[in-house]
């Protein structure tokens, strides 16, 4: 009912994907679609009686405007390749898991688990939504891997198959291990607490002796798994730190846990006290929960993609007169390969057939595709935009330009930054140790040996910087959660701290400040009549030059004028006789016979002349991202800014105006030069650099900078290795994100001060040797819980203040 009302309204949205389809809508029955692709998916689902898909959510589909080539998955008939993808097969049934990044709602879940209605050969399908994976079991007799993949593709869920998947190992153990530990420590904590209650409340020796000592043994047994299993990771990392001469926060924690345990053990066995084992297991429990909150991983997002994941898994290679799919790593020099439209070129090669129009924006940052003629070299990483081409391989995958870029040293060194909490914990521990020794010496000089041991050990127990650890883990955990809700995904909690120290921001231009796929065309000159427009379009249609195509698309006409004596001057322009008029389109030099004046060189300019009149000029400009000027304005006052571009300097004037006179703009930058510029800023100018980029050409710079953020139109898209992935739509909020990271550091400091207050209370009792287990049992949970609540509340408030939810 609602649906039909909506279609009747002025804005028509596609029934399948919900995209606006006012200009070119396709009607089918009583529904409208934006493209034939969407309509086809609907028809398949309708035929298989799977239209519940549309009932569960409104317009749940994925736009199908870009069609998948029919024989794209031909390589899946190759047994050698399929074997790497399949998880299990017994010859009759095969199990396989696919990564489907398109999955986004319950409709997807429902459809993918009912996929056997479409392909009868599929026996069962199970979805793991968090990992965006589908586990499919199919019958080998009635279907094949290729057909299963094609079924998924037909309904709009094209599986993502790449080389990296093939060599990827599944990491599931880690998070489960932590859950086990939390479960065990929580269980032990609660039960030790319960067993300790009789002792705490039996003031005046009311508790019978046998009962008391029996409970003590329960407590000791329950504390063993906490020490040896749950707390093991603190000991392991502490030991690693000691071996590498690095004092990390885990060392004082491990020390405190060990001392607490042995002192409590002594007290309980000798019957001199009831020990602090409840406090110990409580601390371990809270710290483990904190780490779980902080170490949330985005399993569906990959931060470590290397060049391999950008490559296709197989290409068509000419063998014995026919093109057959061959795995990319098996390609050898002098092989003839076939590349289809919109496919990535995996190797450096020479064009042997067809006209290449290669989009290198991802590799070099050039915004305009490069037209390449036969005999010229094309580099790996470029994307063919035109029709099919054939190439002769000159370098294998492992030798190509792109791979070499990746083998630079920056990619081998892991960033080493010492977090502020480690530094703080160092001072904290040193001071507390000093207090401990002083107190011990004092009691020794008084001749109170028992009291001395008492004071020394309890001080060391209190010295545990667990409150500090809790404040940082819970603050960072909540910040990561808020950021990810706002589509800014960080790879590691330490990145928050690095982000808060940034004082210089470097932007890539193409694809980061500008939108890669969109260009703005404008015409300056006399008013063009309809007839003139058709004549221009007719001439442009003849040219395969990228700029011609852009203007042709901009005019959006279908001319049928006859073209006489067409001439194409490479790198200059085109001319012809159309409707008895002489038309010339091209550079200023070609059209006007004049040298280029300054005003003519802004952006890419294409001049038009009909007969003897220069009618005007088409200017093709990059389309800057929404909110670009505002972001820069808000950042300008706080940070030093730079722009690095692989593109030409056509828009230097405009950029300088927006960025301000102090900003450095560098054009025609190679990937290596970008990297060197970041190094220069860091080493010579001592800056903490944030790099924002999007393509492979920024990969080195992203890795070198203190924080590298990759901008992605969709988080499923390929992004180079980085510290964080920012959804392109959230780019205008960059300033807020940095401010939020800064306030996160303030929150950690504030809660640290609070935790010191608690420690002073604890120390007050400890130096006197009178820290009773009861005081510890009250102090510990109150301090932990209050710090958890305060850090959570404050980071939530800081997020709201920045307009983040």
């Amino acid at each position, binding site marked *: 009912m609602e649906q*039909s009302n909506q279609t009747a309204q002025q804005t028509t949205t596609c029934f399948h994907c919900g995209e606006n389809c006012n200009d070119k809508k396709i009607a089918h029955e009583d529904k409208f679609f934006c493209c034939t692709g969407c309509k086809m998916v609907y028809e398949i689902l309708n035929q298989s009686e799977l239209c519940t898909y549309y009932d569960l959510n409104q317009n749940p589909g994925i736009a199908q405007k870009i069609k998948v080539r029919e024989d794209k998955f031909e390589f899946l008939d190759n047994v050698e390749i399929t074997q790497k993808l399949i998880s299990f097969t017994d010859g009759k049934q095969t199990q396989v898991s696919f990564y489907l990044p398109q999955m986004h709602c319950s409709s997807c879940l429902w459809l993918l688990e009912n996929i056997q209605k479409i392909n009868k050969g599929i026996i069962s399908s199970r*979805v793991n939504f*968090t990992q965006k994976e589908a586990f499919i079991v199919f019958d080998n007799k009635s279907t094949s891997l290729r057909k299963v993949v094609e079924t998924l593709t037909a309904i709009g869920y094209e599986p993502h198959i790449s080389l990296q998947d093939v060599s990827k190992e599944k990491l599931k153990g880690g998070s489960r291990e932590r859950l086990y530990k939390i*479960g*065990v420590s929580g269980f032990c904590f609660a039960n030790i607490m319960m067993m300790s209650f009789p002792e705490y409340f039996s003031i005046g020796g009311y508790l019978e002796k046998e*009962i008391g000592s*029996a409970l003590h043994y*329960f407590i000791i047994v329950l504390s063993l798994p906490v020490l040896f299993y749950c707390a093991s990771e603190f000991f392991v990392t502490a030991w690693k730190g000691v071996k590498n001469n690095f004092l990390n926060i885990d060392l004082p924690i491990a020390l405190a846990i060990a001392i607490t345990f042995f002192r409590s053990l002594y007290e309980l066995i000798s019957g001199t006290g009831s020990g602090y084992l409840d406090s110990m297991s409580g601390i371990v429990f809270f710290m483990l929960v904190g780490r779980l909150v902080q170490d949330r991983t985005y399993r569906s997002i990959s931060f470590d993609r290397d060049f391999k994941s950008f490559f296709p898994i197989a290409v068509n290679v000419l063998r014995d007169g026919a093109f057959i799919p061959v795995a990319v790593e098996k390609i050898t020099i002098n092989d003839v390969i076939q590349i289809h439209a919109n496919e990535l070129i995996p190797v450096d090669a020479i064009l042997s057939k067809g006209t290449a129009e290669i989009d290198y924006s991802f590799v070099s940052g050039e915004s305009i595709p490069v037209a390449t003629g036969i005999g010229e070299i094309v580099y790996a990483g470029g994307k063919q935009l035109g029709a099919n081409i054939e190439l002769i391989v000159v370098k294998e995958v492992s030798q190509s330009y792109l791979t070499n870029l990746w083998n630079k040293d920056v990619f081998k060194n892991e960033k080493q930054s010492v977090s502020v909490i480690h530094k703080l914990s160092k001072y904290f521990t040193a001071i507390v140790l000093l207090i401990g020794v002083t107190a011990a010496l004092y009691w020794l000089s008084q001749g109170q040996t028992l009291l001395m041991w008492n004071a020394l050990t309890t001080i060391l127990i209190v010295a545990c910087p667990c409150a500090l650890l809790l404040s940082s883990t819970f603050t960072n955990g909540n910040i990561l959660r808020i950021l990810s809700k706002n589509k800014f995904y960080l790879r590691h909690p330490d990145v928050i701290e690095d982000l808060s120290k940034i004082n210089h921001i470097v932007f890539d231009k193409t694809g980061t400040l500008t939108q890669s796929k969109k260009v703005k065309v404008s015409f300056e000159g006399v008013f063009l009549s309809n007839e003139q427009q058709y004549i221009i379009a007719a001439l442009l249609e003849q040219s395969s030059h990228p700029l011609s195509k852009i203007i042709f698309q901009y005019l959006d006409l279908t001319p049928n004028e006859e073209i006489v004596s067409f001439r194409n001057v490479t790198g200059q322009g085109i001319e012809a006789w159309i409707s008895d008029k002489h038309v010339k389109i091209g550079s200023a030099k070609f059209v006007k016979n004049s040298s280029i004046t300054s005003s003519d060189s802004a952006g890419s300019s294409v001049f038009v002349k009909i007969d003897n009149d220069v009618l005007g000029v088409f200017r093709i400009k990059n389309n800057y991202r929404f909110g670009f000027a505002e972001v820069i304005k808000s950042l300008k006052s706080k940070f030093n800014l730079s722009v690095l571009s692989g593109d030409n300097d056509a828009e230097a004037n405009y950029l300088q105006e927006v960025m301000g006179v102090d900003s450095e703009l560098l054009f025609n930058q190679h990937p290596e030069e970008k990297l060197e510029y970041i190094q220069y800023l860091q080493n010579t100018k001592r800056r903490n650099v944030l790099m924002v980029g999007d393509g492979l050409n920024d990969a080195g710079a992203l890795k070198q900078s203190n924080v590298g953020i990759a901008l992605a139109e969709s988080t499923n898209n390929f992004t180079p290795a980085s510290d964080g992935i920012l959804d392109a739509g959230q780019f205008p909020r960059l300033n807020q994100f940095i401010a939020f990271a800064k306030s996160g550091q303030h929150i950690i400091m504030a809660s640290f001060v609070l935790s010191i207050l608690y420690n002073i209370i604890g120390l007050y009792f400890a130096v006197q040797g009178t820290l009773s287990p009861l005081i510890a049992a009250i102090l510990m949970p109150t301090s932990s819980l209050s710090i958890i609540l305060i850090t959570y509340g404050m980071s939530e408030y800081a997020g709201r203040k920045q307009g983040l939810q």
Partner: protein
Amino acid sequence: MSIIILIAAASILIAGGFLIAFIWGVKDGQFDDDYSPPNRILFDDTIKSKIKK
């Protein structure tokens, strides 16, 4: 032996049962995906033949 110790032992056993249930759940992958199961249970078993208007 006092009854209190028996009660304490019994309570630990019961709590231990819940701990085992939790570990079992984690091992089974119940915490791996928190989106699919709550949605899956809402789906109808029989698939409707035509889209309703």
